[in-house]
C-alpha cells in the first residue's frame, strides 16, 4: 500500500516540481511572485486540447507545439503586463499578476467554456503491473516527461550562454548588467522558459484531472507550498519540495479521509513557515529597511 502510494505520489510530485521550478525561476529573475503562474499551466493544457481536437495530432506529438505556444504566451504576458511595471513596488506587480490570472481564466471560460473537459490521452487506460504494484500509463508519462524536462532545463541552465545569463541575473542584476548582459532580454527569456515548463506540467497532468479553468490555480497553490518547503528561491529546493509534497500528499490521502488530502499542501506550508521558514535548502535573508 505504502509503496503503491509513493509511486502515485511521484507523479503528482513531478507536476509540483515543474510548476515550482518555473515559479522560482521567475521569482529569482524578476524578484516577483507570479500569481498568474497556475494559468500558464492551464493555458498550456488548453492549447494542447485545441491542437489535439482541431489539428488531430496524437497526444505526445501535440505536446511540442502546445509547449512552444505556451512559451510565447508567457512572453506576451511579460511584455504587456510585467515589463511596463518594472521598477515599481512589489505590491502593484503582485496585484497585476493576480489580474492576469483572473483575465486568463475568464478568457479560457469564454473560448472553451467553464465545464470540465477531458484531455484525451491513449495512456490513461493502460496500466503497467509489477507484482502487486501498478502504475497507470499516464502517471508514467508524467514522471518520464518531467524528468526529461528537468534534464533539458539543467543542460540549458548550466551549459548554454543564455543559461549562464539567467543564473547571473538571478544572482545579481547590477553585476549582470556590468558584464554586458541585457537583464530585460534575460527576464523575457525566463518567462518563456517558465511558461514552457509550466505547460509541460499542465499537459501531462490533464488527462488524469480533467481540464478546468481553475485547474492551474489549485496546482499553483500546491507548487507554491512545495517551493516554500524546499526553501523559496532555491531551484533545487523547488524540485525537491515538489516531489516531497506530492508523495506526502498522496500518502496522507491514502490513509486518511479524502477531504484531508487537498489541505495537505497548506498544512505543510504553515508548518514550514512556523518551524523552519527557510525550508530545506533556503538561506536566511535579513533585509534592512
Amino acid at each position, binding site marked *: 500500500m505504502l509503496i503503491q502510494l509513493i509511486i502515485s505520489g511521484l507523479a503528482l510530485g513531478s507536476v509540483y516540481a515543474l510548476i515550482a521550478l518555473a515559479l522560482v525561476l521567475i521569482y529569482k529573475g524578476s524578484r516577483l511572485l507570479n500569481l498568474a503562474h497556475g494559468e500558464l499551466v492551464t493555458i498550456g493544457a488548453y492549447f494542447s486540447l485545441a491542437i489535439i481536437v482541431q489539428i488531430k495530432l496524437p497526444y505526445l506529438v501535440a505536446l511540442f507545439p502546445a509547449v512552444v505556444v505556451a512559451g510565447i504566451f508567457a512572453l506576451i504576458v511579460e511584455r504587456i503586463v510585467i515589463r511596463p511595471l518594472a521598477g515599481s513596488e512589489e505590491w502593484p506587480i503582485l496585484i497585476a499578476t493576480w489580474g492576469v490570472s483572473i483575465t486568463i481564466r475568464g478568457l479560457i471560460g469564454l473560448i472553451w467554456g467553464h465545464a470540465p473537459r477531458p484531455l484525451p490521452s491513449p495512456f490513461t487506460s493502460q496500466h503497467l503491473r509489477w507484482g502487486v504494484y501498478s502504475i497507470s500509463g499516464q502517471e508514467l508519462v508524467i514522471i518520464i516527461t518531467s524528468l526529461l524536462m528537468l534534464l533539458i532545463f539543467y543542460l540549458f541552465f548550466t551549459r548554454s550562454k543564455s543559461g549562464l545569463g539567467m*543564473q547571473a541575473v538571478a544572482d*545579481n542584476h*547590477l553585476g549582470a*548588467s*556590468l558584464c*554586458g548582459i*541585457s537583464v530585460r532580454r534575460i527576464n523575457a527569456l525566463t518567462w518563456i522558459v517558465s511558461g514552457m515548463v509550466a505547460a509541460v506540467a499542465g499537459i501531462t497532468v490533464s488527462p488524469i484531472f480533467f481540464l478546468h479553468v481553475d485547474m492551474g490555480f489549485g496546482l499553483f497553490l500546491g507548487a507554491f507550498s512545495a517551493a516554500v518547503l524546499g526553501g523559496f528561491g532555491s531551484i533545487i529546493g523547488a524540485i525537491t519540495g515538489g516531489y516531497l509534497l506530492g508523495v506526502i500528499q498522496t500518502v496522507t490521502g491514502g490513509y486518511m479521509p479524502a477531504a484531508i488530502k487537498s489541505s495537505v499542501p497548506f498544512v505543510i506550508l504553515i508548518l514550514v513557515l512556523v518551524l523552519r521558514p527557510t525550508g530545506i535548502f533556503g538561506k536566511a535573508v535579513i533585509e534592512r529597511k
Partner: protein
Amino acid sequence: MELLKINNLQVYYGYSQALFNINMEVTEGGIVVLLGANGAGKSTILRTISGIIRAREGNIEFRGQRIDRLQPHKIVELGIAQAPEGRELFPNLTVRDNLMAGQYTRSNKMEMKKDWDQVISWFPVLGERMNQHAGTLSGGEQQILAISRAFLSHPSLLLLDEPSLGLSPTLATKIFGVVHKIKQETGLTILLAEQNVMMALSIANSGYVFELGRVALAGKSRFLLEDKSVLQSYLGVS
C-alpha cells in the same frame, strides 16, 4: 584623440545634485585617477559612465560616440567595463562562472582563451579556486575576481571603483600592483577612483581631485604630488 570625453555633466540623486558641471578627458593609454573624500562624486562619475545612473544634463562621448543614453550592457559591448564599488560579483556562482559571465559579450573563442589564460597567469589563486563559490572568497580575492571579470570583457577602458576599499594595507598594495601590472602588460586605459592618494598617484599618469561633486583640481600626477599644499587642503594628507 580622447578616448572618453565628459562635457558639462550634471547628475542628481532625486532632488539633490551629486555632480556639478563636470568636464573631463581621458586619453588613450595610461591610468587616470579620480581622487577625493567619501561623497565627493567619484563613484557617481563611474556609475554615470557605465549607464547605471542617468545624467540630467551634459553628455559623455566614447571614441566620439555619445553613450550617455545607452543601457549598461550596451556600454559594455562598446568597450567600457567596470569593477564597481561593492564588487557586485555573483556570490552563488563559481569563480569559473563569474569569469565566464565577464566574457558574455564576446564570441572570438581564440581571443577569449588568450585573455582567460592571461588572467589565470596573473592570478593563479583564481585558478585554484575555480570551482568555489565567489561568495566564499576573501575580500582581496573577490576584488581580484571583480577586476578580472571586468578585464575579460576585453574593454578599451577599464573603470575601477576604489579597489582597495576594505582591504588591509598589505592587500591594498597588492591590488595596486595588480592594476599597475595590467596597465604595463596590456596598455589598457584605466580610470581609477581612489581615496588612497599617495598610492594611486604613484601608479597614475594624471588625476582629477573631486570635492563635493565638483572638479577642484586636475593635472599630471607629478604636479599633484608636488603640490603638497593642495593635497593637504583637499585630501587631508599630511
